[in-house]
């Protein structure tokens, strides 16, 4: 029996290839995802471990999560602590770390590193005059103000060498420094493509923090002292708001954080792999059904000569195992390739990933092979059982087993119940607001399964609806339509493959387009300023107050308000106070007041958004107890309540009220209006005033919308790329179904040829059938996608009130066209085969 099964595997090469390809694509996706994510997290882990090379114990400021007495950040570490640490028992040496952001301009004035991670630090010479973290490759270390050292990659990117001048921005005004050296380092951020500029310690402290203070103190243990021993001796000298950790623990924590960061990406990619496999299952089931149908007589003969049912099933399953194993191994190899390609693609986009070997973990190999074999065998199980049910008498019969229509009643009932329940849950979820996510996701899954179960039933009316169009093609059109509904189950399985992909992509496109519209609208309604000035580096230090001061002096600037944020506790909850210019703010933002107005702002009078007000039952005139950043208490009075949105929310006060309490006075944004509105001229003027600062963004409304849009576009493009995979699998599925149809109908095709349908007509018939099936899947997918898009939008609208459902008709048209293209491409080979069919062999009665 084993030999017969193996011989069968080899006997049908073309079909075998198709099955292997289907399984392989799924497995390749899974393997590629695992290899890619493993490689990256391995590399990050290695680079983060390297980063702790010269450190045994690190002291950092420690802020308790819910410290009511100190709403502000914990104070940085003092020089005194550094001296004590260096002298503590078991310590060999200690150095202080100062961190901050430093944006560097290349010689054309553009930011190096695209704002991904632009850091600044200090060079702390030890006893031997060297800092163990940095290795000077060229020139020397910075020693005084005005001197700077660059990491080698940054120097290369900006074409800088020792002796050049470079324009640098830390928190606002541009500074021109002299490059005195170029260094190499193991620092994880630099390895990941960030830029790093080093200053001497005093300058760095002046630029980034307060003089004489450090962000971190790294202690090296003396020979023979363990990290934990050193830690316990250091713990004794720690001030209240500081903590010490061993380097081992820090490295471990960092590795864990990286792994967590990667895991969401890995999950997302595995979801796509799952979809590819899910779609692949249809193909595998179809292929094995086809194999069984073609071999009905052969299998019946085997039954007639004495093979048991179990033996027949087993022969099909053995065949599936072989196919699955071969496909899994090929898929694994392809997956490793995909992993490598993904990494180089990521590298070429500028998001430099640390170098490291491709990581092919044993679990990756095992998962891929198991997934490939198990999916194939499970998919072949149903056709295998069907094969076993072939009665021995079928060997004497010329007709192939006709597809049963029995069971469709049960199937339709189950499908209707599932689809109705799913749709009801989704609609209910959409009405529930932010609590509706769970029910909606569950409902969506149930609905998709329900529609999938119902596809055979839906195929008849939907395909019948295409009749008027198909009539143009005459008889081939009519035959194509009838052939498409002849085996509803198979048509459904084929169309479902496309449906799943299109549902996802349509839903995502609808949501992204609608969100874009909502954000545009919010920017248009909520933003009155002509320009918003902010720091271009995320996570960098906010703008120095100098920025708004120098801009305010311009005669072209008619109104200007800095926005500064100060951590505080409001009515017992941690919150941040937003300080604004009370006179200018009403020109900059549009806010709808439910009570009070802009006029109330000033002194201790605050404006609060409706959510906070509702939660605390505040009205105009309510008195709110606050603890400021520096720990001092105070009282604010509610002057007005406004409708908050994504851009403006929280507690807004006069900046003069919060500024005295802030540790560092800085603005996260400056909003302003100019004479003549947003013009090229005004933008140039603002840029010039800020000294062509590479790190400062000057954006008008359109720029802000575009920036948000680009994030969606990137996400959508990634989705489109990954879903291309599902489409390829769908094409294979359609080819498979058509090949099977052509095979089953060879007699009819022969007859049609004999009584006068020419080759072109036969080809047209097969192509149209393919087109009809693909478009059927496409229409189902689009409809579900739009429905899900609408439902998810209802949830988003609770967060983003200006959200508005926009149906991207051109895109949807494109998707439908793509589905049609899938049909046409998939039909190429089966149509050719049908047209070339040997007429005589086909009509001959067996």
């Amino acid at each position, binding site marked *: 029996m084993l030999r017969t099964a193996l011989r069968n595997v080899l006997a049908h090469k073309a079909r075998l290839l198709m099955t292997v390809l289907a399984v392989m694509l799924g497995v390749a996706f899974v393997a590629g995802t695992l290899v890619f994510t493993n490689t990256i997290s391995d590399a990050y882990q290695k680079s983060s471990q390297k980063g702790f090379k010269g450190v045994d114990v690190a002291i950092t400021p420690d802020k308790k999560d819910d410290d009511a007495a100190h709403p502000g950040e914990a104070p940085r570490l003092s020089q005194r602590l550094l001296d004590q640490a260096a002298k503590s028992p078991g310590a060999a040496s200690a150095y202080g770390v100062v961190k901050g952001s430093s944006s560097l301009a290349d010689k054309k004035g553009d930011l190096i590193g695209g704002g991904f991670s632009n850091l600044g630090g200090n060079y702390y010479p030890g006893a031997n005059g060297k800092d163990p973290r940095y290795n000077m490759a060229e020139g020397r270390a910075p020693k005084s103000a005005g001197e700077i050292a660059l990491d080698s990659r940054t120097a290369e990117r900006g074409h800088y060498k020792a002796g050049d001048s470079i324009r640098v921005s830390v928190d606002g005004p541009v500074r021109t420094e002299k490059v005195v050296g170029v260094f190499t380092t193991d620092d994880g951020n630099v390895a990941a493509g960030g830029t790093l500029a080093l200053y001497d310690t005093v300058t760095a402290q002046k630029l980034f923090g307060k003089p004489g203070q450090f962000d971190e103190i790294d202690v090296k243990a003396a020979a023979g002292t363990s990290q934990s021993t050193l830690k316990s001796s250091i713990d004794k000298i720690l001030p209240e708001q500081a903590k010490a950790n061993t380097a081992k623990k820090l490295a471990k924590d960092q590795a864990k954080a990286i792994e967590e960061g990667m895991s969401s990406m890995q999950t997302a990619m595995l979801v796509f792999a799952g979809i590819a496999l899910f779609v692949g299952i249809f193909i595998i089931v179809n292929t094995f059904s086809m194999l069984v149908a073609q071999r009905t007589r052969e299998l019946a003969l085997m039954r007639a000569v004495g093979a048991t049912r179990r033996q027949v099933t087993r022969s099909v399953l053995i065949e599936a195992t072989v196919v699955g194993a071969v496909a899994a191994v090929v898929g694994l190899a392809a997956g490793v390739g995909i992993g490598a390609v993904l990494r180089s693609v990521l590298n070429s986009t500028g998001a430099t990933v640390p170098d490291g070997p491709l990581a092919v973990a044993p679990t990756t190999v095992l998962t891929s092979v198991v997934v490939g074999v198990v999916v194939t065998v499970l998919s072949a199980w149903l056709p295998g059982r069907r094969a076993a049910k072939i009665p021995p008498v079928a060997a004497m019969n010329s007709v192939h087993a006709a597809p049963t229509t029995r069971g469709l009643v049960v199937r339709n009932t189950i499908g209707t119940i599932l689809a109705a329940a799913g749709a009801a849950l989704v609609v209910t979820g959409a009405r529930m607001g932010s609590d509706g996510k769970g029910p909606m996701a569950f409902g969506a899954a149930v609905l998709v399964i329900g529609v999938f179960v119902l596809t055979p039933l839906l195929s008849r009316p939907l395909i019948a609806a295409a009749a008027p169009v198909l009539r143009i093609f*005459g*008889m081939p059109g009519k035959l194509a339509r*009838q052939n498409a509904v002849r085996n509803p189950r198979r048509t459904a399985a084929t169309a479902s493959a496309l449906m799943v992909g299109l549902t996802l992509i349509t839903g995502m496109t609808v949501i992204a387009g609608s969100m874009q519209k909502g954000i545009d609208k919010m920017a248009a309604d909520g933003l009155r300023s002509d320009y918003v000035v902010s720091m271009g580096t995320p996570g960098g230090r906010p703008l120095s107050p100098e920025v708004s001061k120098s801009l305010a002096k311009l005669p072209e600037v008619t109104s200007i308000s800095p926005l500064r944020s100060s951590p505080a506790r409001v009515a017992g909850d941690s919150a941040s106070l937003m300080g604004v210019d009370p006179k200018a703010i009403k020109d900059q933002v549009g806010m709808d007041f439910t009570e009070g107005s802009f006029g109330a702002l000033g002194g201790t009078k605050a404006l609060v958004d409706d959510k906070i007000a509702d939660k605390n039952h505040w009205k105009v005139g309510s008195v709110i107890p606050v603890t400021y950043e520096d720990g001092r208490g105070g009282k604010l009075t509610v002057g007005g309540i406004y409708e908050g949105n994504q851009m403006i929310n929280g507690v807004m006060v006069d900046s003069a009220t919060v500024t005295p309490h802030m540790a560092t006075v800085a603005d996260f944004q400056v909003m302003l209006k100019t004479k003549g509105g947003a013009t090229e001229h005004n933008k140039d003027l603002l840029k010039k005033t800020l000294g062509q600062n590479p790190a400062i963004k000057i954006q008008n409304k359109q720029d802000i919308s575009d920036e948000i849009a680009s994030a969606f576009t990137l996400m959508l493009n990634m989705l489109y790329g990954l879903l291309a995979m599902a489409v390829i699998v769908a094409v294979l599925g359609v080819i498979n179904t058509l090949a099977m149809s052509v095979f089953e109908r060879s007699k009819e095709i022969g007859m049609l040829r*004999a*009584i006068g349908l020419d080759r072109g007509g036969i080809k047209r018939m097969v192509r149209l059938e393919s087109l009809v099936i693909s478009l059927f899947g496409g229409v189902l997918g689009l409809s579900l996608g739009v429905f899900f898009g609408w439902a998810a939008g209802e949830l988003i609208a609770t967060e983003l009130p200006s959200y508005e459902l926009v149906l991207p008709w051109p895109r949807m048209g494109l998707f439908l066209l793509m589905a049609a293209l899938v049909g046409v491409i998939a039909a190429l080979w089966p149509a050719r085969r049908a047209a070339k069919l040997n007429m*005589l062999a086909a009509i001959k*009665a067996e």
Partner: protein
Amino acid sequence: MTTTPFGVETATRATAAAARATDLSKVYGEGETQVIALDSVSVEFHQAEFTAIMGPSGSGKSTLMHCMAGLDTISSGSARIGDVELTTLKDKKLTQLRRDKIGFIFQAFNLLPTLNALENITLPMDIAGRKADQAWLDQVVATVGLAGRLKHRPNQLSGGQQQRVAVARALAGQPEIIFADEPTGNLDSRSGAEVLGFLRNSVRELGQTVVMVTHDPVAAAYSDRVVFLADGRIVDELRNPTADSVLDRMKRFDAKGRTS
């Protein structure tokens, strides 16, 4: 009952030929494995005549029909339908010729299961995009006795009824010639007799030309003329046959085949 000597063409009727083969040969394979299926066959099928082609299996009777009907290519010689030389036609023209000038009846009925009886009958005209002649169609349908079953699908009809649909399909387009390949092979004797009766009537009453391949002497007896094939050659022919005379002739061939 007059018989003619071997290979001598009887031109006693004044009717023209609906189809004609001249020195038609069909060879399969090459060199050592070469098989000569038809060896310089010359034959005419007259208009408004019911001709049966008979012969033992492997005699080339089906091959002759396939070549004459433009279903198969020929190796040498000529095959004509009316005035049209089939050997000069490309696939597209040949397909059109089959569609417009030839009707087919197959042993396995070969109806499309997705179409109802009427749609199957008008299929060749639908493919051509022509309208059926309604009066003629009604007459054909009435003749084969399917009037009450036109909306039925093939799987709702008996074998005999299905073959009657096939006969109606062949007749509906008023082709110049109908080729029937063992039309009664899959039918019981009563249904077979019905179908053969229709074919004979279509010749007698409607002036149709029919060529039928069969190995059944009873079926052959419905024809006006029987052409006998053996080893790819025409070996005899018989006019106004009866089942007995055909059987006699077959037996003679068998005996001859064994002695020679």
